[in-house]
């Protein structure tokens, strides 16, 4: 019934391929995957591949990190070319000097595998965006 599980989604991300679900009723693309369409709630979806291209909509520099993470690093919300937004990291050589100018910057998707967290059912794969210019 579940057309794209989190493991399948993560495995594709490891190849820098962004997979999502296209709603066959309303056309909306849902990513990360979910049992129901983000827009209309339909379960009538098929797996699709996204471009991995988008633009930053907001960001922060995390300077006080949770246990197991090393600050500073930049977390972003990026709007993908196909419409959906995605939470990810920004590959920023100098995270501490990020400014509002990041908003609107074009980015392309890569990935980072996160294995160090406690109390998970397995490693996570995080979108790691890098600026394109």
């Amino acid at each position, binding site marked *: 019934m579940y057309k794209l599980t989190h493991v399948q989604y993560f495995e594709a991300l490891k190849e820098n391929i962004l997979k999502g679900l296209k709603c066959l009723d309303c056309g909306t693309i849902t990513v990360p995957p979910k049992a129901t369409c983000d827009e209309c709630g339909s379960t009538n979806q098929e797996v699709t591949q996204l471009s991995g291209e988008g633009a930053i909509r907001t960001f922060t520099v*995390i300077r*006080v*990190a949770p*246990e197991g993470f090393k600050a500073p690093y930049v*977390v972003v*919300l990026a709007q993908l070319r196909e419409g959906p937004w995605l939470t990810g990291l920004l590959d920023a050589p100098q995270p501490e000097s990020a400014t509002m100018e990041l908003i609107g910057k074009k980015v392309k998707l890569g990935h980072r595998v*996160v294995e160090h967290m406690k109390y998970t059912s397995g490693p*996570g*794969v995080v979108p790691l965006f890098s600026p394109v210019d």
Partner: protein
Amino acid sequence: MREVAVLGVGMTKFGPSGLSLKELFAEAALEAIAESHLTSKDIQALVIGNVLGDFAERQMNLAPLLADEIGLGANVPATRVEGGCASGSVAFRDAFMWVASGFYDIVIAGGVEKFTHMGTPQVTSALAMIEDSLYEEFTGLTFPGVFAMLAHQYADKYSIPLPVLKERMARVAVKNHYHGTMNPLAQFQKEITVEKVLSSPMVCDPLQVFDCCPISDGAAAVVLASREIAERKVAKPIKVLGVGQGTGRPLSRQKDFTVMRARLASSSQAYQMAGIEPRHVDVVELHDCFTIAEIVASECLGFFEFGKGSLAAEVGETRLGGRIPINPSGGLKSKGHPVGATGCAQVYEIAKQLREECGPRQVEGARIGMTDTLGGTGTVVVNIILGR
């Protein structure tokens, strides 16, 4: 559905405490029961909001142990609910529905949290569990980080230069600390300045230490009963006029989270049930976990136009004596935020305000008060409207 009222309320001082979860809760709950002119034998059900008891004190299945602690009997169901930082309000609303339905006559709702002993990296990690574990947490996104992204989004959306917004956010912190000086139960009872906020260490750009609420221990409890019982038992019963609870989504699915859909839904349920509009509200306790959070909440609840909340904070409309006093208790920012306890602590303040028992921080002539509690990345919002 029958009418429901708040009888007694109880609350511990917020801030680092040597007491355990059970001891903190007992202090607040027994105060609420005594204020209701009841005994533990009269309580028919317990609903408790708690988020991190498992990680903080190795305590799961907390509710029955709390029930036993305060002497509730074998026929009394005890249930823990968890809705992130809104847990206490979720507990209150469930207790309200149990009484309103007629299934029980007298129910105690409460909230308790103890985690100051854990240290910042562990607390930050544990609270991050309130996010989407698969698609948000692995980035290392923290809760200050969520609201930091919100602040940047807000500045961009409304074309407010970041330094201007930051100064207005600082004024929220200054105002809530000022209110906190008049609350003997507040964690901080000390005034701060805009300069102090803007020179404090950066936590997550653009949020600095004084934009953030503290980590706190504490508990709060509220006894609810049918209006008929309430009027027999206490001199000033506080009516529950309306309640609402809405559901949101992870950040990337919400996209623009300066307007949270869970809050729009929750507040409109509460306003509709109470038969009032935002302009009828005299006093508000709302979810200022971060300074920007107070600004967006004040807009979403209908007190200010979208995009105008930061200006309203700057000109003092939300201060005691202003058009709509927000967080006279000091709010989460100054009173403290023992996450599971916050919702019931907000009800505590509004009940005391409506009974005119707040001394120097009293909002004169307040007849209708409202609470707003947010859990997660806007994934849970609960609103409660009380009246006298």
